[in-house]
Structures are given as C-alpha cells and as structure tokens.
C-alpha cells in the first residue's frame, strides 16, 4: 500500500489508497438438500489521486500492479471532477467492535448442520415445502492510507444464514423466507425458523381483499421490501444537493408523522453495517435523520459535503469499484409501544404486508412505491383471516409516513442493515383481482 502511495505522490498533489480483501465461505442448500460448498477469496485496491486539483481514480485486483494503477488514475484525472475536500489526517478512531474471531472458527460441518436443522424444522411443520438456503461466514479487512498522514485498518467478521421456502398447490405458489446476519456466529436456528413457521401458519387460509384505500401494516420485512429504498434515496446528500430529493429543502420541517424517528447508525457493536470509519476514513457517527417527524439531517461523503457547504456524516461508501458516494450504513427506526396484535386489533378491513415484490422499480426518488404482495394477509374485524394474492399495494412514502396510525413495539433486525418495528399506515391504495 505504502509503495502505491509513494508512486502516486510522485505525480499527484494528494493520494489515497483503499484496499479491501475478504475470505468468504458460503454453503448452499437447494430443494431441501446440501448442494454446494464454496470458498471465495478476493482482494482489490483503489487509488484516488488529486492532480492539478482534479480527481483521478483507478481500481485493480492486483496489488502488485502499482504502475498500471497509477497510470490509469492519472489518465482519468485529466477529465476528473474538481476536488473540493481534504482527505482526513486522522490516525485514531472510535472503538467499534465488528470482529469476532469465533466466526472464522465455525467448522463447515457445523454450518451444514445448522442449515439442515433449519430446513428440517420447516419441512416437518409443512410437508411438501421445498427450501433453498444458505449459511455464510466471512472475514473482511479494509485499510486506508493517504498522503495527509491518515491511516486506518479494521477487520470485520460476518455470519449470515437464511432460508426461502416454496410451497406449490396446483399452480398456487406460496413463498416464505427469512434471513439473519451478525458479526457473531448465529448458531440458533430458531431466530429464522420462528419467523418462517409463523408465516406458514398465517398463510394456511386464503382471503380476498377489496380494491380500495385501507390501513396497511408493514411488518419489519414489509418495511424493508416496500418503504426503505425511497427513504434511502431521499436522505442521500447528493440528491439533496441537486434538488432532486422531495425533502431536500425541508431540513428542520415536520414532514413525517410525529411518531417516526429514524437514525443512520454505523456505531452499533457487532452489526454488519457498522465500522469505525467510512470508506474514505471519516469516523463513524450516529446521525439522526428523522426526529419526531422532523427532517434532521442528510447523509454526506467528503466531496458532496464540501459542495453543499456542510460536513461529511461519515457516509462515503464505495460500491462496485466506484468512488465514495453517500450511502446509509444501518437504518434504525425507533419502536413504539403498541404490540403487533394491538395494531391489528384496531383495523376493520386492512392488510398486513410481509413481502412486497418489485416495490422499488418505480419513481423511488420521488417516494413512490408499488408492488405485488408476495406475502401478505388480510385483516378483518381486528383479526388476520388469511393470505391475499394477486394484490398490489401502492403509494408515496411521503404521504404514507405522514399519517402513521401506530408504530409497533416489535423492532428487530431485518437482514443485516435495518432495525425496524412494524409500521401501520392509516391508508394506502390496494388493488386486487
């Protein structure tokens, strides 16, 4: 790393080298059986330079190809954007624990046993169901150094497992599923099977819902599949800077229902979305985004923050080999004090959405979502009466989340990057045939 930096320093005013390497071991199950064991080693290096005030950028999977990397970065700097930021010169960072050595030492046999236990529990509950699933362990090392003396390196462990079940009767297909991840080994199959068995119980009966506006409860999985992508787009500092975020001009204004509080939080110990700093070496911080319905902050990386005349929130992430760009780390929605059952009790006719398919393929930036209810249930007179099909739920999150009937006390982790309770929206558009 140091030698790449030294070489870059010869031709540019400033430079930064970011490397990430990972070892990942996934085991895959298909149709209720172990099918595949994999081992994936990967490494990459990204060089960002500032030459004559402009940003140049190149990445490679070969750490030994110093000259090629520097040449490519110089070639792009000619056309690059004007750099408006200073690289951080920090060498000490907040202590955020994201590495547990126990993850690496989980034996493959133990992983295959865990996967098989999950699948056996589900197939015993519902004979005929076919499950695909996976158990994965990974260790990632990220390092950054720059010409201003900044230096940081950290290791992260990730353990994840999940299952998807498919039950076919005639041409009717029911899909259930759940996944969990952590920086600790997750060895209790119940954390996944309990969710799936509950989905299967609720889906035993079918129900028909009418086409009209009605209250809709998004479960934690439902929030993840329907509502989160538009929120992430709206709080992106880049969209705000361009004037393309519907809430960009509304900092300090109440836009959402007072019950809603949202944080971006990369500082929670042992979570896959946590880290001591972002991908350009800015220390992690806990950023309130919505405080009692009021827009409190947006997410920024160094360059976007400089252009917007504000400070980076430590949200610069690199995806698919690109330059850092503002991205959420972990979204946390504060739970309310109403139980899920109480939310259901209050509804005469409504819908529970557990999985929305294709919800984020519309005008996400504008806050719109519209999706087919892949897994959802009808509420009739305060009770869940069965599973709905051939039904779409649509709306705009800025309208929907302005009128929240209730927020559940049932907050939990969904996948790796979101902690949310159930959210009951007073009225959403439901179309069914």
């Amino acid at each position, binding site marked *: 790393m140091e030698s790449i930096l030294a070489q870059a320093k010869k031709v540019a005013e400033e430079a930064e080298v970011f490397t990430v390497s990972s070892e990942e071991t996934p085991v895959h199950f*298909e*149709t209720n059986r*172990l*099918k*595949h*064991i*994999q*081992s*994936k*080693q*990967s*490494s*990459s290096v990204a060089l960002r330079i500032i030459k004559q005030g402009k940003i140049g950028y*190149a*990445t*490679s*999977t*070969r750490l030994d190809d110093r000259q*090629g990397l520097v040449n*490519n*970065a110089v*070639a*792009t700097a000619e*056309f*690059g*954007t004007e750099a408006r930021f200073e690289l951080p010169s920090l060498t000490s960072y907040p202590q955020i624990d994201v590495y547990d050595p126990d993850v690496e030492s989980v034996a*493959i*046999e133990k992983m*295959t046993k865990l996967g098989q236990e999950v699948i056996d529990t589900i197939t015993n509950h519902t004979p005929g169901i076919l499950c695909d699933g996976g158990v994965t362990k990974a260790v990632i090392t990220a390092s950054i150094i720059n010409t201003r003396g900044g230096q940081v390196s950290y290791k992260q462990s990730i353990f994840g497992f999940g299952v998807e079940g*498919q039950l*076919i009767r005639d*041409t*009717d297909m029911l899909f259930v599923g759940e996944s969990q991840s952590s920086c600790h080994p997750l060895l209790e199959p119940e954390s996944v099977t309990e969710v799936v068995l509950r989905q299967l119980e609720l889906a035993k009966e079918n129900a028909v819902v009418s*086409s009209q506006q009605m209250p809709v409860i998004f479960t934690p999985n439902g929030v993840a599949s329907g509502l989160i992508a538009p929120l992430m787009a709206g709080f992106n500092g880049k969209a705000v800077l*361009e*004037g*393309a975020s*519907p809430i960009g001009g509304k900092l300090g204004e109440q836009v959402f229902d007072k019950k809603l509080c949202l944080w971006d939080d990369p500082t929670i110990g042992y979570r896959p979305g946590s880290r001591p700093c972002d991908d350009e070496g800015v220390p992690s911080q806990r950023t309130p985004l919505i405080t009692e319905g009021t827009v409190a902050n947006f997410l920024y990386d160094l360059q976007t923050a400089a252009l917007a005349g504000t400070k980076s929130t430590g949200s610069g992430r690199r995806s698919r*080999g690109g*330059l850092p*760009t503002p991205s959420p780390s972990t979204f946390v929605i504060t739970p309310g004090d109403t139980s899920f059952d109480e939310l259901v009790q209050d509804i005469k006719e409504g819908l529970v959405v557990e999985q929305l*398919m*294709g919800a984020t*393929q*519309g*005008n996400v930036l*504008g*806050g719109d979502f*519209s*999706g*087919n209810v*892949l897994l959802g249930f009808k509420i009739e007179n305060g009770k869940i009466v069965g599973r709905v*099909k*051939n039904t*779409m*739920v*649509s709306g705009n999150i800025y309208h929907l989340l302005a009128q929240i009937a209730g927020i559940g006390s049932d907050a939990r982790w969904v996948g790796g990057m979101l902690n949310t309770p159930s959210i009951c929206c007073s009225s959403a*558009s439901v*179309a*069914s045939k």
Partner: protein
Amino acid sequence: MTYIEAVEHQLAEALKGHNADYIEARLEENRSSHIAYRGRQLESIGKTTSVGGNVRALVKGGWGFVSFNDLGELPDKVELAVKQAQLVGNEESKLALTEPVVEVVEIPETAKNPAVIPLAEKKQLLDEYNDAIWKTPRIQTSTINYIDNNKRTIFLDSSGSHITQERADIALRLVAVAAKDGEVQQVGVSVGSRDDFNAMLGLHSKAEEIAQRAVELLSAPQIKGGEYTVVLDPVLAGVFVHEAFGHLSESDFVYENDRMREIMTLGKMFGSAHLNVVDTATLPGLRGSYKYDDEGMLAKKTYLIKEGKLVGRLHSRETAAKMNEEPTGNARAIDYRHPPIVRMTNTYIEPGSASFEDVIGDIKEGVYAKNWYGGVTSMEMFTFSAGEAYMIRNGKIAEIIRPVVLTGNVFNTLKNIDAIGNDLDMNQGGGCGKGGQAPLPCSNGSPHIRIQRCLLGGK
C-alpha cells in the same frame, strides 16, 4: 502474454488426476471504464482492471467451488474445490456430455471495440447528451451512467476443453429528473451493445425527449388502480416476456422440484396459438450472445413456446442431464466470483401480423405502457414497470399519465395476450439479476402486444 495466459497450462494440468467426476476452471481478465454524471457535474470517471479465476468440482452430485484473485498455488485451489465437493456429494453425478472443444473466439474486427476508444471521445459524447437533456427548462437534474468492459475468459475442463473467448459489453443509461413543489419525476433511457461502441452514438434527440417527458409527468395524473386493457411497446413487452415467462423456463427452478415439473410439462398450453417465444444466444451483436457458455457448451436457439404450447426450456449441463433433455448452452456466470447458473440470453416474442393500429384500434379505454424501469418475478406472479404511460381512448393514444406498475399471474396473463404486432424490436438496455448475480448482459424483445385484464397499481 496476459496474466491468465501465463497460468492456463499449469491450471489445465492441475485439473487432471483427481477423484472427482468433473472439474472445470475459468480464468478471467477484465478491463473496464466508467463515466458517471450527476447533474451538470461529472461525478466519477475511472478505470478498473481485474484478474481472477475459479475452480468448480463435481463429486457424486455435490459441488465445490473456489474463487480467487490470487493466481498463485492453483493446484491447492483445485484440491480444495474437490474436497468441498466430496463433503457434499452422496448420489450419482449427472452431467450432459459434450465433446472437448479447443477454440479461440475473438471480437469481430468490424465492431468498434470500446477498449480502443480514448476516454476523451467517450466523455465528449456524454457531454453532448447531458447538454441535450439540460436544454429543457425545469429540468432539476440528470444522471448518466456509462460503463464498458472488455473481458477475456479461458475455460478449461477435466475432459480437455480449452476455450478462450473475448467479448466486450457496453451499457449506457440517461435519466432526466424534473421537480416542482416537492414532486419529483424521472424518465430514463437505456442502451447497450455487445462489442460495438457505434450503438452509443446518435442519442441526442432521445436525450431531449426524455427531458421533455419528465417535465410533462409533473402535471400528469395518476391512474386509478385496477384491471385494464394494456398495450405494451416492444421494449416493455420484452421486459414482460423476460419476467413473466422467461425465468420460469430456467430449468434450475424446475429440475429437482416435482410440482414445478408437473406445472411445466412440455406440451402444456401457456398462451394462444399466435404466441411464440424464443431464447437464443446465437444472434450476432446482441448483448446476450456468445459462442460458448460458461460450461463450454455451444449456444443454440431454443423455442420456449411454439403456437402457445410449452416446447422447451433453458438448461445447464446438470439440469439437462437430470431432466433427460438436450442441453441448450444457457449456463452463465456474471464473473469469476460466481459459479454458472441457468440464465436467459436474448429472449423475445416472435412477430405476428397486426399493425399498431390493429392493436389499439378497438380499445375504448386502456393504457399504452412504454419503456421500462424494471421487473421482477416470483415464478407464478410477476411485476414490471413502465417508464412512460398514456391512456388509450377510442382507439387513439390520449393523455400522458404517471408511469404504471403492472402485475400478473403467468398462468393466465400469457393467455390474455390477444394481439401481437408485426414490429419486433430488441431492447439492449438493462441487465438481469438472479442468485446475487447482477446485472448480467441480456437482451429481450417483442413486437407491440395487447393484454386483456392486466392489473395495474395506482391511487
């Protein structure tokens, strides 16, 4: 000599002499450049090179897979893949057979390979498109994403195959965003090409058009959710056939699933007699095309639906053998980090005889949906979304409406296609995602089609 050519013979040797039913390896070298704009500003420009490979082993029906960037100690990596496969396997391996192939497939010389075009020329073109978008007043921002890559792959297997293939892939998406009073609307266009940069040229008027459309959408009404007669343009109909039916014909969803095998019995009627659906990687110049797939199988043209009847499906070597059907050469991996899985290539509905006027002429009230945002399927149910939409009133295209999301059930929606146009067009934009591998270069296409009783989301 390239990095991967330096080790290919060593790796070929390392595949021999193991206690495995089959071993294959891929080596890959990839050079890519990207340019991105947000608004007037260039956001990112960069160059990427990657070198990597993988080994996949089959032992008694179980698979082991090892991927790596580090090209050292290749025999150990083969050993590890075999060991993993041994841990999994407990039945008989089944794999469609093929004669070993030794061949080098290069990019045709007629194509304008993006790898040899200077960055300055690419950037100049994108600047022009961005200017074209910004000509329209009330445009709030724009995004432009351009990416090209040039990939050299060496495929080796334990039966002696040794196939070197070079290909390029180019993708461009232009998006215009309009905003007013907290409302944000966007319209985009995607183009792509295999090997030929010329396909990126001449989009200036298209860029202007999307900007005007985005501004128009700000004052467009939203449709009421419900069932409508819907006409899809070739681009969206291509996305429809990909989502609504294409994924269902991928045999890895079917081969070990008895209920799915029953549902997907060949000969079953899926549509009316005028419906023909094809997948083929053999058409030159299309993004989904190739000569050999990532298991070294020769690409071919496969009819999925002929005269409304299910007649074929897409296979890897394993699914073909397990279903006792002919292999089709559809095993694809997005890169060396992933094993190949069954994927579509270029999928389309064959043209019928109806003119566009025939298709919309007798619709009293309906929706004309054009262009795409995306699509997704759960096999039985699917949704896909239009980038633009208009009402059809008394057989004529009428007012613009907000983009719509369409949903359906494969077992009746295909049967509800009651008119197929004569104007087949292939869409080269976008890419397909499956099993964590996205975006895979694919193309899809169709003529204009009319669907009765299609469910639309709305207010």
